[in-house]
């Protein structure tokens, strides 16, 4: 699909895209986590851009971070040290895991990109006091943006941002659903590029282009070629488009995911009629939870089984970056939930590089053959 070319380009060269945006006079704030209140950044007229780390010159991070930090944290630090993030006007760190929490300190002490904010969100997402605390934290963040950039973020700005983000997230959800219904309408690596680029592109431009992709997909008749096994990918960040291609070569397709670079990023609508800060907080309380946050001891397992049933999933691939504590703690129980429900599953752990292609393909083929 020609309309997907730009998504691929952006996904492959996010820093080039950012530099061009910067040349056009945009101010860019980098962020790491799906709990970043992007809507407030957008409402300020700034450009929010998710950082994944380029995985180049990763050894540079050795000066600040131990080898047992995850490759996202190490790669991001390496990038900022190498000067690859010079296009940023600042960085935002929402509170998530222990590693990002310390990266925030190390970043603050060793870089000078202009704006810097820790958005210390609650870890509990199931009490009224946590909700009120979150609203106050979001308001503080808004104030910090206003002060640093000498601007005013009005309720009107916030409401427009909420409408825009609902539109974008709605489109992504619809595209995911179309793909889940008939995986042959768009390949896994194309879909990957669309979601990833959605965290990088100018959001107004994105909204138009996503709507166009959705429209095109709706017109398209699937080839029905990919009628193989239906898989779900569960983990932290999947930053490897090759995974989708290899899975498809093994005779299966990823029809849904629980990834922070996937559904956890875009699921959950924001109520446009509620007071904006409350509405933003409410979304965080209802969207699928990251394991670094707490809703209940069983929340993620129940969510996973629900998604498996809803999307008629044949098997689950756990994919996670090595040294991710929150996900590693959840894996045994999620696996147990799936085992009890009779859903085959496998675990794949990676650092900045995937295992050799041949080896990975064999693992996927063996797994798919079992289904």
């Amino acid at each position, binding site marked *: 699909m020609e309309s997907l070319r730009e998504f691929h380009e952006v996904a492959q060269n996010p820093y080039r895209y950012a530099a061009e945006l910067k040349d056009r006079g945009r101010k860019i704030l980098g962020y790491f986590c799906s709990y970043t209140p992007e809507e407030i950044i957008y409402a300020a007229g700034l450009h929010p851009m998710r950082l994944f780390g380029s995985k180049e010159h990763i050894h540079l991070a050795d000066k600040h971070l131990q080898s047992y930090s995850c490759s996202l944290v190490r790669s991001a630090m390496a990038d900022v040290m190498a000067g690859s993030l010079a296009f940023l006007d600042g960085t935002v760190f929402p*509170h998530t895991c222990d590693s990002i929490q310390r990266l925030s300190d190390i970043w603050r*002490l060793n870089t000078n990109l202009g704006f810097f904010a820790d958005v*210390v969100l609650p870890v509990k997402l199931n009490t009224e006091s946590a909700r*009120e605390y979150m609203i106050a934290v979001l308001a503080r963040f808004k104030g910090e943006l206003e002060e640093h950039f000498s601007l005013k973020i009005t309720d009107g700005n916030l409401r427009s941002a909420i409408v825009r983000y609902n539109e974008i997230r709605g489109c992504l959800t619809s595209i995911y659903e179309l793909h889940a219904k008939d995986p042959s309408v768009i390949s896994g690596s194309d879909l990957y590029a669309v979601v990833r680029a959605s965290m990088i592109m100018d959001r107004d431009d994105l909204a138009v282009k996503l709507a166009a992709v959705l429209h095109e997909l709706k017109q398209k008749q699937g080839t029905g070629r990919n009628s193989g096994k239906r898989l779900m990918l569960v983990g932290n960040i999947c930053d490897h488009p090759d995974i989708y291609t290899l899975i498809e070569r093994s005779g299966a397709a990823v029809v849904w995911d629980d990834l922070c670079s996937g559904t956890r990023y875009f699921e959950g609508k924001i109520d446009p009629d509620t007071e904006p800060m409350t509405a933003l907080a409410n979304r965080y309380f209802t969207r699928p939870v990251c394991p670094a946050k707490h809703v209940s001891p069983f929340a993620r397992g129940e969510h996973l089984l629900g998604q498996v049933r809803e999307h008629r999933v044949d098997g689950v691939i756990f994919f996670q970056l090595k040294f991710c*504590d929150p996900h590693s703690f959840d*894996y045994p129980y999620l696996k147990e939930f799936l085992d009890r429900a009779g859903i085959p599953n496998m675990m794949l752990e990676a650092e900045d590089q995937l295992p050799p292609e041949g080896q990975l393909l064999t693992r996927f083929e063996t797994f798919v053959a079992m289904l």
Partner: protein
Amino acid sequence: MAQIDEEKKKRKFKSAGKMRDIMFEYYVEAKSAGDNGKKVAWITSGGPVEPLIVMDVIPVYPENYGAMIGASHMGGDLCEKAEAMGYSSDLCSYARADIACAPVNGGPIGGLPRPDMLVCCNNICGTVLKWYEVQARYFNVPLFIFDTPFCHTGFSDEARTYVRRQLNEYIAFLEGACGRKFDFDRSIEVGRLSLQGQRLWQEVLDAAAHKPSPITAFDAFFFLALIVTLRGTQTVVDFYAELLHEMKEKVAAGISAVPRERYRLLWDNLPVWYRLKWLSDKFASHDACLVADTYTTAWCGSMKYIDENDFLSSMAEAYTRIYLNIGVDEMAKTVFEMIDKYDVDGLVMHSNRSCKPYSLGQYDIQRMVQERKGIPCMMIESHMVDERSFSESQISTRIDAFMEIIKQHKGHV
């Protein structure tokens, strides 16, 4: 020979035996709680324990048990069991050992007593949240999470409001779990004892400022168990008062913890529990005494935030602003202060694969210490209770090299 034994005896702490008795009684009471109609709560080491004491609930600390497992060299085996259960070998070894213990009643005292409730305070790490979720599923008991917002650069008003409200929620949780009202009058007394215990513990640690030091960090790791487990009780106050008295006697008699103390070092991070003696002997063989550490100080480091006349409301802030729940630069400041206070010649950092919030940032602290304090630093990498992760020959060589640098630095070579 007899004389050497006599010297060694003098250096030993008479209080050590007493502490073992107290800990033994504590675990006996905890393990027979059910027979005595008492409830047991598992709680994180830096958690707000005082309300449990007020409610007569016996607090049990999986982390203290983790330390015991490590010291008994049972960590490697239990961690391996956890790995067989699906837990990655990169995870915290306290958590792995504890999770593996539960189903098999493993570890030195045959497992911890079954909890009636779980209290998890995330002021030490995000790991405890996941660990307590695991145990909440396993034991199927209520879990209270005391969420202490991380203080990168300060403590915000909204964080203050949030933690104070949680204190009320915590009390309501305990009232529900115990089926009776919280006794606010008693909480005043428990608060007073807690603060008194913390003050005495700080005084015990302060004794290391004396040259030569009557106490090593290894002794502190041992004596720490009481301020962790029985904070808020008279037992702790009495015991540390006695220990302090013994410390003063040693100072007066000129008895040093390390026979020929020539070099004084500061330890950072949790201990390597299964190598306490080896490390202690190794450093002593270089006439070096690890006089202090950042870890044991953490149980009295946030006293400044406690209002003696209003313990209950101020404790929420104090628990939020503990050593690990602050930014790397704040932690570095504490390290600088300790370097000056204890007049140390070098810093030994344990890069602890089990504890990311303690370890990530150490490289920056190391640089700051070298720049501002001009003292040598070294790193030892391991998992605190998983002895499989400790490379003895490599670490031994590094300690020798580090001590050479210290000696040169002091102009002794």
